[in-house]
């Protein structure tokens, strides 16, 4: 049985009139790359900041490593590494000095060799003594990751880790995240608004919109669920909608455009759907289950 590393229950946070996070619940299992997906402003960063005690929740409970975050803050943060949005480090210090500071702040007295090994791992050993202000965005991102990993945490939280990176940098970051989970046995919570990235690295996914959970589950279950999202193109959507509405196995029907309906149903019943439409005298142009994460995400968030 898998251990639950993060368990969040009914988490809420309001900033003035804005409900940034609304009754959010989710759980992250040990060893997985848990994707946290949502558009900009959906509430991802606010949630992550609450997990790192940067923001006090208005309501809700957070348990990490089976411990209550409020009561065991230091113990939990000692076992957690994080990069929140841009890894803004001390620009006037060298990479080595930055890494040494963050190791100390994590409660670790690292030797010079340990720090250099860490910089070697992210490909910055040769520039260890250069000031961070001379670094490119990609180098800063890698140094940020080194700072998050220097104390060998069990849980790694990365907020938009590929932001500002070029395609090669994105691929390297993705590779590193997968390696940390697969080879290092780490649990990673990775937030992003890039669906394609999530599709390539996450094993589980949480989709939020306007601070609320829209969907949660294993990636393959979300992409290939028993209940599929189906798009039907017909010439007469009104008649089709009326016909489909009479069944009890087709749900959440809505018109996406004048010739396109979208609804939920069991995938195994698609042949039955075809027969129903033909018997109803409707001209079918196409029937298509929605597969990609992007389409799933857009459908779930209604965007």
């Amino acid at each position, binding site marked *: 049985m898998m251990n639950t590393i993060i368990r969040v229950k009914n988490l809420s946070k309001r900033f003035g009139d804005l409900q940034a996070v609304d009754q959010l619940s989710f759980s992250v299992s040990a060893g997985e790359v848990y994707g946290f997906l949502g558009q900009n402003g959906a509430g991802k960063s606010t949630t992550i900041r609450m997990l790192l005690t*940067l923001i006090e929740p208005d309501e809700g409970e957070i348990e990490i490593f089976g411990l209550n975050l409020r009561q065991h803050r230091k113990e939990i943060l000692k076992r957690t590494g994080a990069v*929140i949005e841009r*890894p803004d480090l001390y620009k006037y210090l060298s990479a080595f000095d930055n890494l040494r500071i963050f190791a100390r702040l994590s409660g670790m007295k690292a030797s010079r060799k340990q720090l250099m090994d860490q910089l070697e791992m992210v490909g910055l050993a040769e520039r260890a003594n250069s000031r961070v202000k001379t670094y490119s965005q990609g180098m800063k991102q890698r140094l940020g990751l080194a700072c998050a990993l220097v104390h060998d945490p069990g849980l790694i939280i990365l907020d938009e880790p590929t932001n500002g990176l070029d395609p090669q940098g994105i691929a390297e970051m993705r590779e590193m995240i997968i390696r940390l989970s697969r080879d290092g046995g780490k649990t990673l919570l990775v937030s992003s608004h890039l669906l394609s990235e999530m599709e390539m690295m996450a094993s589980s996914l949480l989709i939020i919109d306007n601070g609320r959970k829209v969907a949660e589950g294993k990636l393959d279950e979300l992409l290939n669920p028993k209940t599929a999202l189906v798009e039907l193109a017909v010439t007469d959507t009104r008649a089709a909608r009326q016909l489909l509405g009479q069944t009890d196995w087709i749900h959440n029907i809505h018109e996406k455009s004048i010739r396109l309906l979208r609804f939920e149903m069991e995938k195994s019943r698609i042949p039955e759907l075809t027969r129903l439409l033909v018997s109803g005298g409707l001209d079918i142009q196409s029937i298509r289950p929605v597969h990609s994460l992007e389409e799933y995400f857009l459908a779930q968030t209604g965007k």
Partner: protein
Amino acid sequence: MMFITLLRIELFKIFKRPRTYIAFGAIAMIVLLVQLALKVNGKDFIQLYTDSQSDTFEIPYESMNNGYFVCVAVLHMILIHVPLLVALIAGDMISGEAGLGTLRLVVGKPIGRTELILSKFMASTIYVVMLLVWMAIFALFGSILLFGSGDLVVFREENMHLMNQQDVLWRFFAAFVFAALALTTIAAMALMFSAFSENSLGPIVATVCVVIVFTIVQQLKVPLFEQTINPWSFTTHMLGWKGFFYVEKTAEGVTIDGSVENPASLVKSAGVLLGYILLFLTVTVQYFKRKDILS
């Protein structure tokens, strides 16, 4: 244990920043300028204060213009401006990190927020002390080297206070300790403003503005402010260091060695400054403990 680690990190960061050395450079330059001016025009400077008494007795300008006298002159001229240099560092302590974005990385580590604030305050205090030690080296020991030593004469409005040279060094030591307390008050205030801001300029400007406003209020010397604001204004009490150079005299007008004119006033000033430090620090800690880190 974590507090010591945090303090070391804060000091490391302070002394790795080029702006830290601006203050040390500025102090060295101002002191050297004052020393140069007094070396060349010391007599004219002393005459400004002794004009009214020069008819009564002969003023020994040469021996008066010694290292101790120069050091007191330097302290008068620059201690009023040092708050700006202190604000430059302390005002940036929290807001600078918020603006830079490092604050969220630091607060997300297994450290207490109170510990973090206290370490930043302690680092600012150490910076203040080092600034004053630097000033002492240049203003006191540098002046002794350039001008020699001798009895100290201090002017106060129409009065002169004369101190034997054997009775002087402890006064400088006490004055520097008091100045450290006064500047630590400024550091605590700048740190408080820093907790409320997310850019470093705001707290630095706010600190300097507060000092300027209260200094002006204090210098107006109108009854309204003399009776209400000035007794409790920290700018009034920041000048308490001068009290160590005002001596008690016998009925015959002879200086009593080791005395100060008004020790109770010195104790009160120190108490008020300590009270302000405590107040600013409490506000900072209480606010920062609950602050959502959004930067």
